């Protein structure tokens, strides 16, 4: 599998009243063609901002200040806004956490599907009627693909006329309209109830296999990652702290933070077993010293840890940002 997306030393900062917030600090990552990368971390760990940076959608006062983002051989940071716009929605697509707020309430579902094709698809026929028919046919096909019943009659409807699960499917259908090479899906199931969650994730996995696209699954749910992702990347306070094949990372976490995350998941199989929360809080990202960021919450912390820690090899295809990898928990 060749590399589709390669991010190196990415840094994204937000100028706030309190000071400069380094929301993404030196993040490097790779997504190979057709693979599914899970990105895990708490709120504020920088996982969403990292991929907003990849898409060029960081809002002011945020700014990507350093690093390279190579996608399909091109550095996205060097592209003009117009070139970047052409890639968004066509080669890299994105879905958002809550489809209710991500779909425009004032526009019909059909229009919101059609506009992506109008913006990107040069293969549409030239004639007005033929064009409209082609768009319609494709929209019906896409809604059918994500399992919306009787799609042809529902194109005229507005988002509020659909259930939460259906809206999520519509958003996915819109994202997939141009058959992107990479789908970034941010918390695709958080706004849904449990039974629908599973269906939506199955849908994404299924389509990934059929279209051969790569998927970045941003979530805070390690269970979802275990089931759907080839590789996983754990983020903490703007940095990647551990990265590797899913089964290895979850089966044998090396970074104390990953271990903490796994220990804080409720497991029905271990009834009576206490959930162990990670003590303390995520550090304030304003003016952080260049030392291990998990130090203040880490059960293994030692004075030697108060230095800048690089990603260190932690097994086959694995890396972790910890000086005490050798020691058992």
């Amino acid at each position, binding site marked *: 599998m060749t590399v589709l997306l390669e991010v190196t030393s990415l840094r994204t900062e937000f100028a706030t009243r309190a000071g400069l917030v380094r929301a993404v600090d030196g993040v490097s990552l790779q997504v190979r063609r057709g693979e599914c990368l899970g990105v895990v971390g708490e709120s504020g760990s920088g996982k969403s901002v990292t991929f907003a940076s990849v898409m060029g959608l960081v809002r002011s006062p945020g700014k990507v200040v350093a690093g390279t983002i190579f996608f399909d051989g091109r550095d996205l940071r060097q592209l003009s806004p117009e070139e970047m716009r052409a890639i968004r929605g066509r080669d890299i697509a994105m879905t958002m956490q809550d489809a209710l707020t991500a779909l425009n309430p004032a526009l019909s579902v059909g229009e919101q599907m059609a506009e992506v094709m109008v913006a*990107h698809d040069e293969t549409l026929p030239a004639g007005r009627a033929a064009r409209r028919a082609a768009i319609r046919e494709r929209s019906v096909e896409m809604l059918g693909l994500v399992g919306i019943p009787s799609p042809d009659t529902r194109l005229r409807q507005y988002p509020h006329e659909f259930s939460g699960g259906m809206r999520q499917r519509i958003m996915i259908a819109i994202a997939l309209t141009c058959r992107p090479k990479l789908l970034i899906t941010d918390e695709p199931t958080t706004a849904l109830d449990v039974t629908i969650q599973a269906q939506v994730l199955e849908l994404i996995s299924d389509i990934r296999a059929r279209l051969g696209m790569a998927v970045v699954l941003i979530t805070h749910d390690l269970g979802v990652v275990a089931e759907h992702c080839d590789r996983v990347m754990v983020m903490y306070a703007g940095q990647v702290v551990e990265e590797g094949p899913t089964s290895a990372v979850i089966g044998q976490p090396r970074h104390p933070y990953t271990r903490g995350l796994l220990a804080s998941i409720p497991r029905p199989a271990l009834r009576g077993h206490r959930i162990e929360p990670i003590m303390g809080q995520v550090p304030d990202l304003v003016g952080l010293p260049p030392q291990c960021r998990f130090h203040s919450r880490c059960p293994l912390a030692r004075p030697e840890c108060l230095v800048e820690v690089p990603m260190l090899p932690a097994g086959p295809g694995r890396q972790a940002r910890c000086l005490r990898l050798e020691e058992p928990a």
Partner: protein
Amino acid sequence: MSLGKLLERIIQLIPVLLGVSLIVFVMMALTPGDPVQIMVGEQSITPEQEAELRRNLGLDRPMVERFFIFLAHAVQFDFGNSFYHGRPVADVIAERLPATIELSLVALIVALATAIPLGVVAAIRKNSVLDRMATVGSLLGVSLPGFWFGILLIMLFAVHMQVLPVSGRIGYDNEVAAVTGFLLIDTLLAGDIGAFGDALRHLLLPAITLGLPMTAILMRVTRSSMLEVMRQDYVTFAEAKGLPRRRVLYRHALKNALIPTVSVAAIETGSLLGGNMIVETVFGWPGLGRLVVESIFLRNYPLIQAAVLLYAVTYVLLNFLADILYTVLNPRVKL
């Protein structure tokens, strides 16, 4: 939009009109000045003649009785004769109404055409020089009294630069046959482009003066709702779809941002009615507003009553229109 809802609105109108009638009636009774004295003026008449006049106008009866007589006639859409004109009030008002409607509509168009683009640009370039200028300008627009601003405009454009007329609806040499009463339409029907331009030039200053406070309010509403809308997820998602910036701004953001603007515009159009009295007086505009002001000076009771009722009905209907527009623009809401 159901028939029941419409009926409900019409029923709501009844107490409003009753209350308005009563208030106007009481206020006129409390205002010093006697219509008969004003009509007679310096002429000398005998007490008998005066009593006769008073009886003809119905002013010899007690207050309460006069009020009920008025109500009894009003429900049959009979508002009596204008003291001053000696003709039915309804006819006098109908003659003056087109001038006022024409002025108000042009003022509304001027207000919408400046407020929406300014509000959008101010929101897109938040904190830019243009945004700050628009914000200061809108503050001035709300605070400047209409009569003062109107006089300033007259001094600058009519007196000093002499590019626009001082007052009236059209020049004497450009008068055309009245068909609709709207000069912009009548001049075109007469095929007289010169007269059309003249009517338009007469409209410009009063329309700007009348529309200024509304422009200011609508600009601020548009700016703040545009800013609000641009923070929404659906705008980010539209950008993530790789849509052209124009489409993101105008189709996705503006369509939603205009919902409050249109509602406020419909309600604010009611406030143009009050502004009309001042602006028509300043610009010598022969419309309903000036007629009402003149009638107040003449204590022309029947005309004041009828005009105020008309204002009240218009105001309620505009509010109703605001509700309808809100549901049309917003597919989530069903009236």
